[in-house]
């Protein structure tokens, strides 16, 4: 089921042929989604869904409008074109409107794997079953989520751009909880290619952590050194990346405005610690992403290198106004890290806390990029370079800017899931000094 890339390309061309507006941009997507969800060691709300979507924007000069629909029959598409053109004609002129992008040079994406695309619900069930059986055998209650998506898409515009894309992805996470002692553990993975995927080790990590986190001891809040496992690190790194914006900075309403003097430029400034390097690369094989953003080619981009801010995302209008090149935001994020094992990182900490993952991260203060959130599913005290035992959870109030400033050491990058987005990321565990654990959470 679903539409092939060539069918999607033909659909885009057909719709562009219906458009009488001066300019148009269309994106068509066809997806197959397989969901296996479990709780209390049984499957709960599974699903196998097929969907399509068509997004069309048109403009008459500087008047524009957009429409999104999920039907591809001739009548629906014609009515959608008629509707969006009527809306565009009525829309006031936007002085910042630009025509669609010109054709560019697009890299070949690495986001597709046949094995993932061919995975059936039965295949997925058989891979999940050993995980649930392992949880039962260990006497823990598990709750898991497997999401496999296969999407094909095409993007085209009235300037001659026509780019097909495809993406296969599987994400899996498991929470294991103990009846006695309020233990909880979590582990996850995300892959493009499921050929060698074995979910059992992921489940076993969660189960082991749950058992190890029973009978947590009280430990007070306060600023301390933390070892953030990759899932926690990726949340903070993605929040930092999304906070970077050239226009917001130029307009005086970005956290960077508080870091440089009036009239100064943050690019080239050592705003972070020397160990901080973060980049995006659509063709980075361990965590690839799409190769264009609305027709604008996406290439390898270094955001931070050795602590120095190198690049800010900038939209097309603002780039033109400032005489600089437009820069799409990140489609993936990579932090190479220092390659140390988790045990080696823990060994560097005299007194601190190991964090498995975060939960409910929210911006508290945009002026400093201060975020709040909580630890969950495996929080452990570190004493004299070793795990000293499970401790209570915490609320933190901390800025990812400080995290990269206070970065003391890092591990080897991993592709895991986070709480905030499922954007492909390959990031290591981090050792961060002076991290603000603001208060104790009674959650377990």
């Amino acid at each position, binding site marked *: *089921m679903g539409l092939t890339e060539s069918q999607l390309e033909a659909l885009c061309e057909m719709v562009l042929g219906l458009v009488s507006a001066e300019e148009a941009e269309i994106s068509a997507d066809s997806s197959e*989604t397989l*969901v296996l*969800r479990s*709780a*209390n060691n049984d499957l*709960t*709300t599974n*699903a196998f869904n*097929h*969907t399509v979507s068509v997004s069309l924007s048109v403009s008459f000069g500087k008047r524009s409008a957009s*429409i*999104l629909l*999920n*039907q591809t029959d001739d009548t*629906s598409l014609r*009515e*959608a074109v008629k*509707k969006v053109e009527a*809306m565009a004609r*009525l*829309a*006031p002129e*936007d002085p*910042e*409107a630009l025509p669609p992008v010109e054709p560019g040079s697009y890299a070949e994406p690495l986001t597709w794997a046949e094995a993932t695309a061919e995975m059936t*619900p039965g295949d997925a069930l058989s891979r999940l079953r050993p995980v649930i*059986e392992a949880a039962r055998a260990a006497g823990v209650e598990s*709750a898991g989520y497997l999401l496999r998506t296969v999407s094909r898409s095409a993007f085209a515009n009235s300037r001659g751009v026509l780019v097909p894309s495809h993406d296969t992805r599987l994400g899996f*996470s*498991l*929470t294991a909880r103990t009846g006695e002692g309020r233990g909880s553990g*979590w582990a996850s993975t995300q892959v493009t290619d499921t050929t060698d995927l074995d979910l059992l080790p992921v489940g076993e990590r969660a189960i082991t952590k749950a058992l190890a986190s029973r009978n947590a001891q009280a430990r007070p809040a*306060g600023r301390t050194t933390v070892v953030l496992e990759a899932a926690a690190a990726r949340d903070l790194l993605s929040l930092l990346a999304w906070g970077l914006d050239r226009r917001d900075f130029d*307009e*005086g*309403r970005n956290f960077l405005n*508080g870091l440089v003097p*009036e009239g100064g430029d943050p690019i080239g400034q050592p705003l972070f610690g020397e160990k901080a390097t973060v980049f995006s690369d659509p063709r980075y094989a361990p965590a690839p992403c799409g190769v264009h953003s609305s027709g604008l080619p996406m290439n390898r981009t270094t955001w931070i290198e050795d602590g120095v801010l190198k690049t800010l995302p900038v939209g097309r209008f603002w780039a033109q106004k400032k005489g600089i090149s437009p820069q799409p935001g990140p489609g993936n994020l990579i932090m190479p890290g220092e390659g140390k094992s988790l045990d080696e990182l823990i060994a560097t900490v005299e007194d601190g806390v190991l964090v498995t993952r975060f*939960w*409910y*991260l929210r911006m*508290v*203060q945009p*002026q*400093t990029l*201060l975020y*709040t*959130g*909580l630890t*969950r599913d495996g929080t452990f005290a570190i004493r004299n370079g070793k795990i000293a035992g499970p401790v209570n959870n915490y*609320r933190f*109030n*901390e*800025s990812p800017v400080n995290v990269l400033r206070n970065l003391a050491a890092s591990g080897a990058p991993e592709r895991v899931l986070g709480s905030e987005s499922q954007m492909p990321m390959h990031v290591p565990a981090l050792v961060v000094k002076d991290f*603000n654990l*603001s*208060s104790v*959470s*009674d959650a377990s």
Partner: protein
Amino acid sequence: MHRRDWLKGTTAAGMALLSSRWTVAADRAAMLSEKFPDFASSVLAKARELGASFADLHLMQLDEESLFVREEMVQGVGASSSQGGSVRVLVDGAWGFAATSEISAPGLLALVDAAVAMAKGQAGWRQLPVEIESLPSHTGTWHQPVESDPFAVSLEEKVEGLLAVNRAALGKGASYCHSHFSAVRERKWLANSFGTQVEQSRIRIHPGFNITVVDPKKGEFATRASLRPPRGAGWEHISEWDAAAESALAVEQAREKMAAPPVVPGRYDLVIAPSNLWLTVHETVGHPTELDRALGYEANFAGTSFCTPDKLDSLRYGSEIVNLFADRSAEGGLSTVRWDDDGVETSGKEFPIVKDGIFRNFQMALGQAAIIGHKGGSNGCAYADSFDAFPIQRMPNISLQPGTDAAVTAESLIAGVENGIFIEGNGSWSIDQQRYNFQFTGQAFHRIRNGKLDGMFRDVAYQGNSVDFWNACDGLGGAPSYELGGAMNCGKGQPQQVAPVSHGAVPARFRQINVLNTAAESGKSVAVRNRAREEGAWCCTQRSTHSWA
């Protein structure tokens, strides 16, 4: 109008108002209404043939409009429409579910095969069978009455409205102002093997703005967002709002906030306006009392709950004056429907969650009540946010009830505070996965000294434990001070589903709540921290008030 009369009132006028300006959407909806009985008959028959002990068919059409204005530039004129269907089956004690955007007899019948295969794939390794209660059958239609269909209001009027907001803000000296509007029309058709076959539609609308003032010399800025909540209502929710006046006031408040003294962290008496408190109700009462969370169904994402079934009828959730009531029938409520997505009629299913301070009820969907020995079955809290989403337990409208004295206002609550803060508007929010430890900010923080407002504070957040917080409540506004807040996008489930929900509240007073200085939390404002230490307040703000249990 009494809420039940309003909920049952399917008027000709209501129907007429739902005609769409996008003809294909209206035409398709009419087509679905016409064909639904045949679709339902064949899908349910096939499900029975394949061994389903229960099955339902959902069709859904979602039409949306949105508008975004940056300063005086109209930058986002958008519309969307989606249709699709899903089949849910219970076979041999296991759920199966499949969905498609292709609504045709063959397409829907193919879903039955896929859903049954998914359920049968669990044969032999389930631990416990899924069991559901029998539900009464219902037939009929319900279309939410609105005074003015937002989809019928001209684009010009909508654009002019937002431009007026932004011009008022910019005229008052705002550096920037963004405003937005969105409207959603949700149509659903549901048939199940209990004999239910219903059709309903509703409308929700969300206006808003966010203004920014910048001090480039200090590298500082402050924002103030609109306090106007989304509502299950028509265009009248916008036409009744003096948005330009609020945006001008917002500029003054943002400027005052930027120049205000930083709050000294410590314990303060708080008077919280409904525009802030609705979200606190949502996070500290709404989510903890979802039975699926308490039973572990959300453990991998949204979390579990401190509020476990053994605490029913015994947990002192709040002080004796605290009453929190749940319904899916309140006029204007974002969660209001006539039938939930399991086919339960919501009218008559209203229930107290907290009565006189005691925890009394969970929110439940199909198949959950018996697990805790509750004999009444589901209380109508199922919802699926799209045609391809499995219905799960979602929040009804949950509201803090007014105090007994109708004459009590925010001002009279403030009069009873010596040293405190009056908080308006919701800002940042976060709470742990078992709903103990929360932290909220707001839009405006007015200092209270000796019973009167006295300027503003900046950098305020309040933090606490849900049960301690509600037990610290010692004052409630009267019925005239009741306001309905809410959100369009409450998140839950995997894949995440977003649900609209309203929460009514009155101004309420809470004694000795832990207040943080957010700048100090970021490590920026050392001066504030030192000052707090001198006053003996800092250390006690950094500890949970609860012992480890």
